[in-house]
């Protein structure tokens, strides 16, 4: 995803001398064609993402309950006060942060291991890659049901072996752990694929030279591979963090948000679709949007030029 910006800046020296040399008529045609080719994509994204996000800011400033459609009125920031002083909201935010941080960190470790296995294995590379794509591709709801039944006492194998017949999904902390487990299972292969692309950039000669100089496997990994892979690691972390932050499907199927296990997406959905409260729902939408923007901003600040979207720090 990061390369698009990179591409653009990198291409610049390419076409421009040619364009300068070309007739202005040809350049005009090129501009027109460029805009024309992008127009449908721009129109769809503007209409289905751009306009609605502005509209949701507007909705968030109103008292707008679809159960009482004649009582719509502009209330300024009242909804924000209501949401931000609500303990359910903060509980959901807390749960979301815990799920995000724990699952992304474990995925990073497991994903790195899986990437190394996929990259270096001597036997059966095709089988390993094929099977690890299954968690990535499988419908999240399907995987979530598989986990749910596995942990259901009586029906499931895990409930008996691991939990000793206890209903783990009806208690807050075990339920959150099961949700994290389901997240990790589903998305580790994706993490591994992103990291594997970084691994492919590590020159073999460099590793051999390090080995000659007496570096052991761990030193080679930390001192040689990780620095080269840094951009790939950052992209993978950013993607997975933002993705984990919007967790919904797994929670919906596994706990339904009961016992205080709702994520922010879940609580927004409940207010909006079940509670039909457009004002509060939109306020939560805007707050989640801001939270995601902050996360992205922190990543880019923290990692500076190596962050996705910048043109330095790769190749």
């Amino acid at each position, binding site marked *: 995803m990061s390369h698009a910006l990179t591409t653009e800046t990198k291409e610049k020296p390419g076409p421009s001398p040619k364009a300068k040399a070309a007739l202005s008529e040809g350049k005009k045609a090129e501009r*027109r064609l*460029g805009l024309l080719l992008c127009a449908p*994509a721009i129109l769809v994204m503007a209409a289905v993402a751009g306009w*609605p996000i502005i509209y949701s800011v507007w909705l968030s400033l109103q008292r707008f309950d679809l159960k009482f459609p004649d009582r719509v009125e502009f209330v300024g920031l009242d909804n924000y006060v209501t949401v931000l002083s609500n303990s359910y909201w903060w509980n959901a935010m807390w749960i979301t942060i815990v799920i995000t941080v724990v699952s992304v960190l474990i995925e990073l470790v497991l994903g790195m291991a899986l990437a190394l296995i996929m990259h270096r294995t001597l036997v059966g590379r095709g089988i390993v890659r094929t099977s690890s794509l299954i968690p990535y591709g499988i419908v999240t709801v399907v995987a979530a049901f598989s986990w749910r039944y596995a942990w259901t006492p009586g029906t499931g194998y895990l409930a008996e072996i691991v939990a000793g017949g206890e209903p783990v999904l009806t208690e807050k902390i075990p339920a959150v752990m099961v949700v994290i487990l389901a997240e990790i299972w589903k998305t580790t292969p994706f993490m591994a694929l992103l990291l594997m692309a970084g691994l492919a950039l590590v020159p073999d000669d460099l590793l051999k030279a390090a080995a000659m100089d007496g570096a052991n496997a761990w030193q080679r990994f930390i001192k040689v591979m990780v620095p080269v892979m840094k951009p790939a690691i950052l992209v993978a972390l950013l993607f997975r963090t933002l993705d984990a932050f919007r967790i919904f499907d797994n929670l919906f199927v596994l706990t339904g948000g009961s016992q205080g296990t709702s994520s922010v997406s879940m609580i927004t959905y409940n207010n909006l679709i079940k509670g039909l409260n457009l004002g509060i729902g939109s306020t939560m939408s805007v707050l989640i949007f801001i939270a*995601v923007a902050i996360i992205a901003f922190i990543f880019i600040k923290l990692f500076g030029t190596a962050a996705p979207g910048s043109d330095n720090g790769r190749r």
Partner: protein
Amino acid sequence: MAGVGGAETTGRKARWTVLNILVVVYALFPVLWIVSLSFKSKATLADGNFIPREWTLDNYAAIFSTTEFVRALVNSIGIALIATAIAVVFGTMAAYAIARLDFPGKRFLVGVSLLIAMFPQISLISPLFQIERSLGLFDTWPGLILPYITFALPLAIYTLSAFFREIPWELEKAAKMDGATPGQAFRRVIAPLAAPGVFTTAILVFIFCWNDFLFAISLTSTENSRTVPVALSFFTGSSQFEDPTGSIAAAAVVITIPIILFVLFFQRRIVAGLTSGAVKG
């Protein structure tokens, strides 16, 4: 790593084999479990055994006899195919322009795509819910196809522009020398070369649409446009005393089949698409 003895090679092979088996088991366990559930008979469904004691096709027969599931399957296939087709066509056009042409607003388009890719989908649910209800798009196919295209476009644009950079562009120049316009050069020369990349992107986009749950559960309300993941979560069994586990498992297996087929036949392409689209800068 040079000069490894024969015995050591065997040892390393054995170690890799063990690791590989671990990975395969990790990946397949939950899938095999849901498959196993779907083949269990009513009496043995709740016995907690990993392998069915009694095999039956009853669960499959049951779901295919309900309109609830069949209609959802038709919706899922139709909506995902249409959204994929449109997203890939629009994405191809935009990616070509971004990779090859110089025009104002290019930076802006790339920035916006990046933004949408990182966008929390839930933030769009409330405005879209209201907008679609007032436009009559709520609970219709276009009502789902539109958001799918929107969120698939960044994916399509990034993956495709990565593939487009690998294409030998001298051929395009040659075509232009021979008098082709940029448009003709695109259609006649580049499009056929780009086909494998386009196909890979189509698979990734299809998986994305096929997978979606949040839009599908929020922007539909009836069998009209409800997709399988949503229908699954609403399965209740034919009477209120009946446990829907078997039906859910069978339906889950049915919608996993296309994913398994993609992965089996296009493993290389999917890996190439995901990795090139994401990191190689």
